[in-house]
């Protein structure tokens, strides 16, 4: 990847802040995102206490020990970081970001480090370092590209993940994420978008009518059906913003005769814990899992959402019984399987425009779902072009790691975080950009708008909805009903 230039106006816009000076002064926190008021006094001490408590009960310590021992400071990771490639600021080199936390670990939690620290009197944690971490860890989009490039195998994204977790324990976390999570875990609606059940039911009924009209087929969203094979849970924001994706998914289930259900008791797969707190991560996972237990479904099926899929896929087993936990799938896995089994037919003659595919970091980086969506797309798109690099080496949309939900940093996301992506999209000349992830979709729409790219951002199932072919049996159901 080359270094990416941005103009000085763009730079100014990206780094400007909407925060009021008096708030910054009061919270002693010169960062661009909003933070709820928190106890400012004694931050360093409380940071260390939180760090110690986390080390005590988790598995981070052995990884930190290893990283501290091997870190070679070779700066190779810099070529992979989409943020550093734009800002060119050494502070945005992944290894530099990691060193902020590693040096605190070394100084306060290792014998050699604390001896050295006491002799030289240097390196102890202070307010300035906390402020630097609060900024640096949230400049990162948690895309994990740097991990691909570290020759000694340091996982910078794991360190950022831990850094954000510790900061959140002393009250420093983006307000946007905290407020949504509070509603999800403790609020009346129990979901991050605060959608009440009647509104959900209304929306789905409305979509059902629409689909019947458009397709001439009765397509249902089955609610609260005990014993279904899949408990389907999308990022809850899809119910507000991604109607086409949901309709596509319902259409696939109808065409393939799949057994699925949506729970009206809990219908949100968003898990901001993955972005800022392992404790939250765990609570959300357990809430999701207990819903599938309550409805006695065989498995959990996550909608088009990268972080929700990754958190459920990896942390349902961690917190809910290891190998014995119910399996978790992403909707693309189901659709692909149906295509393979010949149960799903897609019309290759409808979409003639150039189409490209964006790999969401959370499902592509580890090589989990990379070829399957491409094979689905190729069955109905003649004009499919790849962005480069792609698959496991994809470039982040620029809104990863929860930053997309922080509206006040939109200029940063669309000029710095997403600049490399914007260049990639432009180079394809695509009319449709498929991004099977709620977060990526939101970010990419803002990105193409702010960057003036003529391209429509859609979900994979949005297009499937356009091209799905129902056989006669389905059509009959509706005509009989009408007759």
């Amino acid at each position, binding site marked *: *990847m080359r270094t990416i230039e941005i103009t000085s106006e763009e730079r100014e816009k990206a780094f400007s802040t909407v925060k009021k000076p008096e708030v910054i002064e009061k919270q002693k926190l010169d960062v661009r995102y909003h933070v709820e008021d928190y106890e400012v006094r004694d931050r360093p001490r409380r940071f260390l*206490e*939180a760090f110690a*408590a*986390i080390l*005590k*009960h*988790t*598995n*981070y*310590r*052995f*990884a930190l*020990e*290893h990283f501290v*021992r*091997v*870190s*070679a*400071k*070779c*700066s*190779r990771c810099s*070529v992979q970081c989409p943020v*550093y490639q734009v800002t060119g600021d*050494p*502070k945005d*080199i992944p*290894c*530099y970001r990691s*060193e902020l936390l590693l040096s605190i670990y070394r100084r306060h939690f290792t014998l*050699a480090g604390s001896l050295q620290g006491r002799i030289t009197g240097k390196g102890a944690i202070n307010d300035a370092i906390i402020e630097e971490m609060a900024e640096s860890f949230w400049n990162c989009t948690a895309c994990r590209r740097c*991990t691909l*490039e570290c*020759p*000694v*195998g*340091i*996982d910078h994204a*794991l360190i950022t993940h831990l850094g954000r977790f510790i900061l959140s*324990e002393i009250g420093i976390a983006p307000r946007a994420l*905290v407020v949504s*999570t*509070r509603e999800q*875990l*403790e609020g009346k609606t129990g979901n991050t978008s605060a959608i009440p059940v009647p509104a959900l039911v209304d929306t789905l009924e409305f979509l059902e009518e629409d689909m019947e009209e458009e397709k001439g087929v009765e397509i249902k969203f089955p609610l609260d059906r005990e014993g279904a094979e899949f408990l389907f849970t999308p990022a809850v924001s899809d119910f507000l913003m991604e109607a086409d994706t949901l309709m596509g998914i319902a259409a696939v289930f109808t065409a393939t005769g799949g057994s699925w259900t949506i729970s009206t008791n809990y219908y949100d797969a968003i898990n901001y814990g993955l972005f800022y707190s*392992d*404790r*939250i991560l*765990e609570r959300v996972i357990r809430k999701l899992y207990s819903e599938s237990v309550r409805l006695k479904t065989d498995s959990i099926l996550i909608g088009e959402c990268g972080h929700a899929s990754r958190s459920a896929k*990896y*942390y349902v*087993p*961690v*917190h809910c019984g*290891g*190998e014995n*936990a119910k399996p978790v799938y992403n909707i693309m896995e189901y659709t692909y399987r149906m295509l393979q089994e010949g149960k799903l037919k897609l019309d290759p003659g409808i979409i003639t425009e150039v189409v490209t595919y964006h790999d969401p970091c959370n499902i592509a980086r*580890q*090589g989990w779902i990379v070829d399957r969506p491409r094979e689905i797309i190729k069955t109905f798109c003649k004009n499919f072009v790849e962005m480069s690099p792609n698959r496991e080496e994809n470039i982040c949309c620029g809104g990863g790691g929860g930053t997309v939900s922080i509206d006040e940093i939109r200029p940063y996301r669309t000029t710095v975080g997403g600049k490399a992506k914007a260049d990639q999209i432009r180079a394809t000349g695509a009319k449709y950009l498929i991004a099977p992830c709620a977060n990526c979709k939101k970010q990419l729409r803002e990105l193409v708008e702010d960057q003036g790219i003529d391209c429509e951002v859609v979900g994979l199932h949005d297009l499937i909805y356009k091209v799905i072919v129902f056989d006669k049996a389905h059509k009959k159901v509706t005509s009989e009903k009408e007759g």
Partner: protein
Amino acid sequence: METLLDFARGPLFRLTFIIMILGLLRVLILDIYGAVEAYRRAGDKRLDWKNAIIKTLRWIFPFKSAFAQRPFYSALSILFHIGLILTPLFLLAHIQLWEDGIGISWWSLPHFWADFLTILTIIAGLGLITGRLASRGARALSRKQDYFWLFILLIPFITGYICANTAISPSAYQAFMLIHILAGELIFVLIPFSKIAHCVLMPISQFIITLAWKFPARVDDKIAETLKKKGMPV
């Protein structure tokens, strides 16, 4: 001078070499112990071993991965490592020392190739130093030890080359030889306590980071309790 040299070649060599071996064993054992403990606590014990092995091999033999991004730097680094590892091990003069000491010996590099590798290592090392100094990013990252290592590692190569290839007076020879040996021994002692421990730790990195994402089950309550936050709202 003679006695000093003999001391450096004999007891001091044995001592520092043992420190290095024991030190490396120590960090390796600590690392593996930590990983085993983490595995024991992990809520989900299924690991993607295959992926970790592939990634490890890709970095130990970085012919493809390394050149994709920074070909020049990678080439320097690889040549540097080849020289660092092969030259000391397969130099005839070193092997003879082992033979005299404990009676084992093995294949040695022909003289020409030994010289060639030595020069190559020195050039690659100087290249890496230049690279570090020339790049703004690398400069910002570098600690003192990062420069120190590139510098100290070259000393045995430079002095060794001088001793083997130039006609210098016996006393100058002895002085260079002493520096050569002492620098080598300093390196031995420091290896296990510095980033050069990567020579034994790097092969397990990919396993460590694969495992590190497998958290222990149910820690929310425990952390909350330790921090006296139980029952507090989000």
